[in-house]
């Protein structure tokens, strides 16, 4: 399990635009870099990030080898209703990790 950091408010007013910040600790190995032994280190990156809000996709991103280690993403969501936000990072070597947070809308 990679360490993730997620920042969003616990509560929001209906219709409010909230900022969400996420970070995953990941090497984002490009696949182009020779290691200490001269052999190219195989690619190991996160390729896709999605945010589902009550099972509806509200944000997604494609990630490429040029993106630095520990990718940080910041985006906005309209607080429509109380529910669950699910954040999923997926990538090379079958990598997939999902974290959830609840949001109360008043």
């Amino acid at each position, binding site marked *: 399990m990679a360490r993730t950091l997620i920042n969003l408010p616990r509560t929001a007013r209906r219709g409010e635009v909230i900022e969400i*910040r996420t*970070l995953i600790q990941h090497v984002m190995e490009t696949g182009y870099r020779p290691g200490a032994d001269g052999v190219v280190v195989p690619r190991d990156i996160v390729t896709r990030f999605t945010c589902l809000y009550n099972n509806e996709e509200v944000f997604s991103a494609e990630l490429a080898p040029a993106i630095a280690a520990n990718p940080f993403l910041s985006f906005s969501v309209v607080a429509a209703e109380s529910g669950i936000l699910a954040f999923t990072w997926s990538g090379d070597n079958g990598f997939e990790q999902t974290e959830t947070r609840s949001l109360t809308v008043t």
Partner: protein
Amino acid sequence: MRRRALLGTALLAAPALAQAAPRVVVIGGGFGGATAARALHRLGFAVTLVERNATYLSCPFSNAVIAGLREMEAQRFGYEGLRREGIAVEQQEARAIEDRRVVLADGGALPFDRLVMAPGISLRPDAIPGLDTEAMPHAWRAGPQTLLLRRQLEAMEDGGLVVLSAPANPYRCPPGPYERASLIAHYLKARKPRSKLILLDEKDAFSKQKLFEEAWAALYPGLLEWVPLSSGGKVVEVDAAARVVRTEFGEHQAAVASIIPPQAAGRIAQAAGLTDRSGWCPVDPVSFESRQRPGIHLIGDAIIAGAMPKSAFAANAQARVCAEAVAALLRGEAPAPPKLINTCYSLVEPGYGISIAGVYRPANGLLADVPGAGGVSPLGAPAATRAAEAGYAEDWFRTITADAFG
């Protein structure tokens, strides 16, 4: 070629210049400027040093003042030594750099054939919303801020949380925030053992990292916590009155906070058009002449020096190289490509010193590391090695302050 042609014209047009010693003005009386003034004076120039303060307070060793291990007066250096040698010291602010003359605060002007500037840094507290440097001192320029942070630590109740921050590169004194965290942790361990220290960092790696981490694990377990960028270490705003520090992913209620803001070259360098979009001064790595304005040389923390860090030692080394380059250019010769050395000592507790050394040379328009030269203190070294290095740090301080201020 163009420069040589211009110099030739200047000499022909002003034959009187050949008789009088060329006039060199130095702005800034820190480690770089004071060293440059003395070196230029030794090379036979009529030197005027412009410095707004009557005395200089050294940043090196000022973390020890914060931690109560040293008194401020040990950091203070005057300019009597320079005056005794025959250097004119103008104690006032430089207001503007015009064509071949420096305009002073009192309205006077100092004409120069070459100008050397060591303007140091300016701090940008406005880059962190909510920051009030009286409530959360940066103490990144030795002086009242240093003592303010010390008093806040002394007044703090046992059990309080101390929050420090380290900015992104580049900034003055790369190992400084980590030495500060170490020495404050030492103070807390001795005086306020129920307290804790968090160091929020906008980076994932730092100078002498393995050595600091080894020392922290041995000396301050459970007391000092380093939070790197990838663990949410970047400070995005503060509530100075409530002493709350907010990062990208959380917030900390501090009893005492020292937030080191991002930095740029000293204001005079910005006003004189010597900085680029980075806020720092691009220079030629052989002559230290500005890439923006010919005839003006820059040294020390204000410059873009490539691999060379922003340190007192680096400023001192650059000052001596720059003085030789200025002399060569005034003779109409090309300056010789230099090799420069830097060494930085850090204390992690009294009697426990660690160091990093590097050698640099011009390459591709910047100063680059000479591979295989320099290095850091060994990991896992015995206490005697650490004690010896703490002693070398004291020797270094005596040597460099004597070299700069006489």
